[in-house]
């Protein structure tokens, strides 16, 4: 099989993902109408569906750890962020007293989603069991949303202040980088199921190993590096947005209150 043939043929039909996306779209339109933030929702649903039906999903299902990692990052960081950005500015995501309003809870949610799912038994189970896989996907979306709520909540007063947000994102990046570094340089397999694929269902093992040069060792390195470098760049982009938010003068909203100092 050539790369072209693989890319053409390895699409999988995922009824649940499509139905869920349709429901989300209708629910959004029903709740908020067709406002100008809807492109964010479309982008979120697009990334979500593509992650689960494209050849990426076929590769992540037992062939490539790095493909799984890319899926993981998209579902944890990109989809929930876009979803939160699609909400109109007036929507409140729970009162201040809720547990998820606590930045520590948000931080732990984001970081633990990375660490827990890469514990060896869980990582293996997410590939071999349909149920655990579904559990993994939904938990990533949920934990990602709890993580991003601190940064991207529609209402300004439900977010943490920009300098705090910079520290929040920076420390989350460090915590995930440590895992990425460990995976990159680990002499043992983090997710052994990818080292010995149970059965070559698609007949692409040869393609991956020889044409793409992704031996199990390199594959794990690329997976670790994806978590270490590009994932941190996602956090970095958010940091830049926070700095822009901080230095953009809130002239209209906050009158000069020097006397208050």
């Amino acid at each position, binding site marked *: 099989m050539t790369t072209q043939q693989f890319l053409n043929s390895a699409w999988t039909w995922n009824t649940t993902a499509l139905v869920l996306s349709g429901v989300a779209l209708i629910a959004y339109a029903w709740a908020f109408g067709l406002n100008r933030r809807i492109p964010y929702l479309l982008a979120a649903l697009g990334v979500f569906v593509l992650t689960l039906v494209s050849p990426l999903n076929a590769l992540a299902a037992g062939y490539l750890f790095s493909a799984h990692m890319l899926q993981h990052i998209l579902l944890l960081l990109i989809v929930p962020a876009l979803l939160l950005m699609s909400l109109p500015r007036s929507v409140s995501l729970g009162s201040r007293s809720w547990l998820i309003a606590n930045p520590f809870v948000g931080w732990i949610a984001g970081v633990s989603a990375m660490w827990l799912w890469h514990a*060896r038994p869980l990582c293996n189970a997410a590939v071999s069991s349909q149920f655990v896989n579904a559990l993994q996907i939904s938990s990533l979306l949920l934990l990602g949303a709890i993580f991003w709520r601190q940064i991207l909540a529609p209402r300004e007063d439900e977010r943490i*202040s*920009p*300098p*705090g947000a*910079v520290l929040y994102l*920076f420390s989350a*990046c*460090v915590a995930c*980088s*440590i895992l990425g*570094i*460990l995976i*990159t*340089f*680990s*002499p*043992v397999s983090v997710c052994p199921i990818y080292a010995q694929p149970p059965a070559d269902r698609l007949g692409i093992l040869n393609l991956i190993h020889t044409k793409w040069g992704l031996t199990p060792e*390199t594959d794990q*390195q*690329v997976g670790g*590096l994806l978590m*270490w*470098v*590009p994932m*941190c*760049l996602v956090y*970095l982009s958010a*940091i*830049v947005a926070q*700095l*822009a938010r*901080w*230095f*953009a*003068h*809130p*002239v209209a*909203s*906050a*009158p*000069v*209150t*020097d006397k*208050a*100092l």
Partner: protein
Amino acid sequence: MNGTTTITATVAHLLTPAERQHWKLAWLSCVDHKRIGILYMLTALAFFVIGGIEALLIRLQLIVPNNTLLAPDTYNWLFTMHGTTMIFLVAMPAVFGIANYVLPLQIGARDMAFPRLNALGVWLVPFGGILLHFSFLAGGAPAVGWFAYTPLSEAPYSSQLGVDYWAISLLVLGIGSVSTGINFIVTVLTQRAPGMTLRRLPLFTWMIFCNAFLVILALPILNAGLVMLLIDRLLQGRFFLPFGGGSAIMWQHIFWAFGHPEVYIVAIPAWAILSEVIPVFSRKPIFGYQFVAASTVVIVFLSLLVWAHHMFTVGLGHAVDLFFVAASVLIAVPTGVKLFAWSSTMVGGRVRFTTPMLFCVAALLQFLIGGLTGISHAVAPLDWQTKNSYYLVAHFHNIFVGLIVFAIMGGVHYWFPKMSGRMMSERIGKWTFWLMTIGFNLTFMIQHVLGLAGMPRRTFTYPDLPGWGWMNMVSTIGAFFMAAGSILFVWNLVISLFRGQPAGDNPWNAWTLEWATTSPPPHENFDALPPIHSRRPLWDYANPDRPDPVVPVGGAIDTFRPDKIKAGVLTFIISEAGFFGVLILAYLFYNATSQSGPGAQQLDVLKTTIFSICLFASSFTIWRSEAGLRANKLGKMKAWLIATIVLGGIFIVGQALEYWHLFQSGVTVGLDLFATTFFTLTGFHGLHVSFGLLALLVVLGVALVSNLKHGRFPALGAVGYYWHFVDVVWVFVFSIVYLWPLIR
């Protein structure tokens, strides 16, 4: 005025009348940030002379092919000492010195947040420097380069004491730097004048503030590496020795995880000086304050991420190289933003080419060249060709001398009037400038060519290949131009201190608060401050009819002012977390595969669990103790405090018993990788528990003898934070060392 009275008047400036009674101690014992700043700079200057002489000797050896002036060993000593001295004993103390002097003044503070800690930081510099240079007397200086790659720096290959002195002195300097970094952060957070919100900080202060985070995050990585190296060398550990199962590459990772941010630790203050001087002498506010400020944060972040581009030639594999090429090239964006901002500040301004401005413009241009060659090194295939050649030497000297030394010289010429009350001579200053820039470009520009022609670096001589001889000759001549420039610079400092024109409060018509007080400032810095509504308060004060737009106050964070002691301890904890992070990563890496011999399975998990419960319980008791203080029940507070000390003591005794047991059965540090990593990780944790216990005992002693009726006892809260942190570290260590082997 004749000469004698000038000198007397100057000496009168250096000491207050009261201090003349005990003049021997007046500068040694002082904790005033201004004097400490000057002490930092004087120390840097002294080591600049030493490092400069080393550089001249290196250049003299290389003046002609096949030269025999220096023996190979001597050459290796000299380039190691030159690099180490210039980075740790010149660049860092110099930028810390300038920041120490200027930062509190710019935010309208009376002093740094922790003046005594500040004094500790400055005195650790000469102490570390003397330790490093003492190696010359103790059987030979280190000859392993400033990066001390293992296994060359390990005991079997460098059996003399040089590397030990090198590592211990860097450890001393690293601790001093972390203390200074903590001090800068807490000073900016807690000592700002009313109205000086975080968004109104002058760029210099903002950039030093960001840089301080890099200091407290990067230096602990080096410190962890250094203790691992010392354990290898002195206790026969196995971290970096391949034949003992260790990994020599691990040292490179640790060193460059520190080493890459280190470049920015000295470069960001240089940019901070540029951001201050260029607007003043262009008579325009900085172009794009927000962009310069934000890009600094981005650089701090990126610099911690991309160290592996120093290791392209190690053979990490294409996958790793590829990611780090991409991430490293990204750094060009925020640095490009800065260059653009400084250039645009000059465009359309009324540029005055005074000596400080000349140095800063030169720094900008040399940085452009060094930055571009830097990008060429971010591309792995090019890096493979040029890494070990003089092309790289030329690149990083463009950064370290062209940018950093020039910016520091610009900064010294700029702030000298404030520090001394006298102007530096412009005539000598311009001579200094031209000698330095011409000398620098003679020395280093030609090294790009030499490097591309294949001349390897770190080698004591070279064969007589076509062109190499005269190019090296030019390079050496250039070095002596720079030496002449440096001598003139020192001469200018001395002569101006005694004979310079009086400066007045604000000789450059600058806009930040340090120019709002007398030159030199009184001990308490300010009598009164002008109102602060923008980033240029003195401009607003001088031009009430057309002030800068007011920088609004938008929420609590702008006026955020945490408790000084708690902020200090929390910053310290961030830095300590970095240190333990490296040790934990090393433990995980080295124990990923189980080896033969005694391993974690042999540990007595049950006993340690009992002792661990004691330690975890002590977090609860110290929390109760604080609650007792808040409720003003001092008896309760003391009782819970004693309980904390007892529980912590039980843990330490338990750990000692465990060690004793292991030693009895022949498990020592040098036995195998497990033993080395186990004793290092648990030992350093135990050391921290012991320090925590000492601190608790001191707090208890203070609580017993003093009268705490007001319920205010910040030391208890601070020690409480530290104690919780030590417990949290043990949660990780205990899970990884004791529980992980049970489940895997």
